[in-house]
């Protein structure tokens, strides 16, 4: 085993009062070899600087990370809140009262005579259903929900949208007539089916 450490050789104590001798003890080659070399010092100092620099860089990176974490946490909080908000809105939209009101707005009524088909023997069976065609004894909305105050009916919105679409289509048709070009003629005909798709057909059966 070799070692990098330099060992100091024991020196005989010079007794005070003794006059300095003219004879000097010359170090041997082995002793000279054992002394620390400059290289080691350079390496040590350099590595210290490297370590310090690395630490500094690391600290910068970590701090940067902290900012990133902070902003991501803020974002997460906001997203959580938005999610909560949407869930709240969804729960309200899907509440029994809202569904009943929206369905009634579209002119839907409960089936007074539902039938079921028995797949085992192919027989058709009339389910009890409700004897009352309105499904709620002629007086609906007896189960209230104060949160639904001001909830718009989708059916009226759809009707308004359909009306607007119709107006757009009419305007487009007018342009077609004015320009009397063949290309805008196709534009008008493509607008019409779009309006038809948006519009829910009005209930004709009651």
């Amino acid at each position, binding site marked *: 085993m070799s070692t990098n450490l330099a060992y100091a050789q024991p020196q005989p104590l010079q007794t005070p009062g003794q006059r300095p001798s003219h004879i000097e003890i010359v170090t041997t080659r082995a002793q000279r070899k054992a002394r620390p070399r400059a290289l080691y010092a350079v390496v040590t100092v350099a590595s210290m600087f490297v370590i310090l620099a690395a630490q500094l860089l690391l600290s910068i990176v970590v701090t940067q990370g902290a900012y990133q974490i902070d902003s991501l946490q803020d974002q997460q909080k906001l997203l959580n809140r938005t999610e909560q*908000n949407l869930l709240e809105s969804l729960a309200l939209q899907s509440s029994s009262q809202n569904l009943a009101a929206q369905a009634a707005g579209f002119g839907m009524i409960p089936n007074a005579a539902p039938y079921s088909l028995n797949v085992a023997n192919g027989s058709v069976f009339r389910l*009890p259903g409700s004897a009352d065609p309105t499904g709620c004894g002629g007086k609906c909305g007896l*189960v209230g*929900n*104060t949160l639904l105050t001001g909830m718009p009916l989708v059916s009226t919105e759809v009707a308004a949208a359909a009306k607007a679409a119709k107006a757009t289509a009419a305007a487009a048709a007018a342009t077609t007539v004015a320009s009397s070009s063949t290309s805008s003629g196709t534009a008008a005909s493509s607008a019409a089916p779009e309006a038809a798709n948006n519009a829910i057909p009005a209930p004709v059966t009651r």
Partner: protein
Amino acid sequence: MKPRSTRARITFVVFTIVALTAVFMVRLIDLQVVQAEALSAEADTKRTLTRVTYGTRGDIVDTRGAVLADSVERFDIVISPRVTLLRENASVVVLEDLTKITNVIGGDPTALLTTILESPESDFEYLAKGITLEQYQTVVELDIAWLYYELRPERSYPNGEVAGNLVGFIGTDGPQAGLELTKDECLASQDGEASYARGEDGVALPGSSVDILEQKDGGTLKLTIDRDLQFYVQQRMAQTAEALGATWATGVVMRVSDGHLLAVSDWPTVDPNNVNLSDVGDLGSRAFSTPYEPGSTIKALTAASLIDSGSANQRTQVVSPYALELANGGGVISDSFYHADQRLTLAGALVESSNTAIAQYTDLLKASARHDYLQAFGLGEKTGVGFNGESSGTLHDASQWDARTNYAVQFGQGLSATSIQMASAYQTLGNDGVRLPPTLVEGCYWPDGSVTDTPSTDGTRVISKEASEQTLQMMEMVYSSSGSAPNLQIPGYRVAVKSGTAQVAESGGYGDKVVISYAGIAPVDDPEYVVIATAGIPDTIYSGVIASTFRDIMAQTLTTYRVTPSGSSGPDLPLRW
């Protein structure tokens, strides 16, 4: 030898160094050891901030997961009028800002300014309470420096009055009624506390965040209630109550196989979102808390006890007069309408709902045994649901029955029961004579995945399977042969049913006031659901209305759960002899 002065100088320097070192050492030890804790604590308070981390109160959901109660986030806008009014030309600038704010949240800016000006020295005033997320975000974007925001967790009941009487509500002092109150242990959240060190720019220093107390979210309370069915039952019971001019009404749907309550409606109802719209007396659930003398619906239980004990069978014969003088000076009882003497079987006594006939059967079984049967059916004891304000009803000991009560209890007077208790007794008849504890809560589902509050499934046998089947057959004769039969028909299904019209005791006697009800089980060939519709103190005693209400609710239940129609036809028992 060195000169003396040199030595003195050296001594002086060494002494000074030693002395200084000693002073520094003492100071060092003082700072690092003696005062270390206090100092670092002081430093922490300067550097670190503590904030409340909010736990979320658990949701209440129905058996299919539809939300009946959930926690929502609202925000308060807080200001310090003292700081707000520090700026130059404050009232003009502030009014400008207030106008911007009220454009978003509504309200009158000048009124808000007045409140600010009224308390110029205050450091804490609410500018607005409970604004929504959208409003909050818009106000934040206005970038008004003197506003602070606080989170305000609130409770929302998206289905309004649907199951409102069961769910209960939360007031400013916490849970006030219903399951919100009794199941608070499951639902309640715990707010936490976290501390963190922050840098000059307000950003949390990396690794400095410490949870002093971790926040805990509440569990999700899952009910046995089916929201859609509940909505239907509430709607139908409300119509019935209005049609009859009743003071109150309850409707209960219970599953026979496990005693789960699928719908429990109370009328008048409460909307937990705004309880101020309701009367204080209507905030709880009458189905649990208000016992009434059930009347003739008890006769089905009487018949079941007689058959189970072997005292009578479906064909046991009596002659039923219109009025009957009771033994031991019990006075005279009579049937609800005048008739000549009828030769009835037990089945016929149920179809005619004859009090005089039932009184005669009553003598076939001794009082203590009859009491024990009624008790085993669940009367006189709380159901075990543990609902807030739940009543046990009244069933006196047989030894306390006087000569009249001895007979009256067997046709449902002189004892009282809640709608839930009656549903539970009928569940026994449908479940081959085994009574299961009524259940309203399926369980508490905790965020960590564990489940508590699961209901007990231990049943108790009350009557034999044969006795329950024979009782249902007799009740089916009511469905097919009684005067109300036309109002009861559900095509394709065999239904066992019994009506009840009970007088209400008031100031020591019975007056004109009654409670009318229909209770039944379907389908008879494989009983699945119990329905009880009850209306209290109606203006008009027309049981046809409540009969059709019972039919509609039962039909809706059978359709909702796609119950297979009955494959067999009903019995044809002799009613007279």
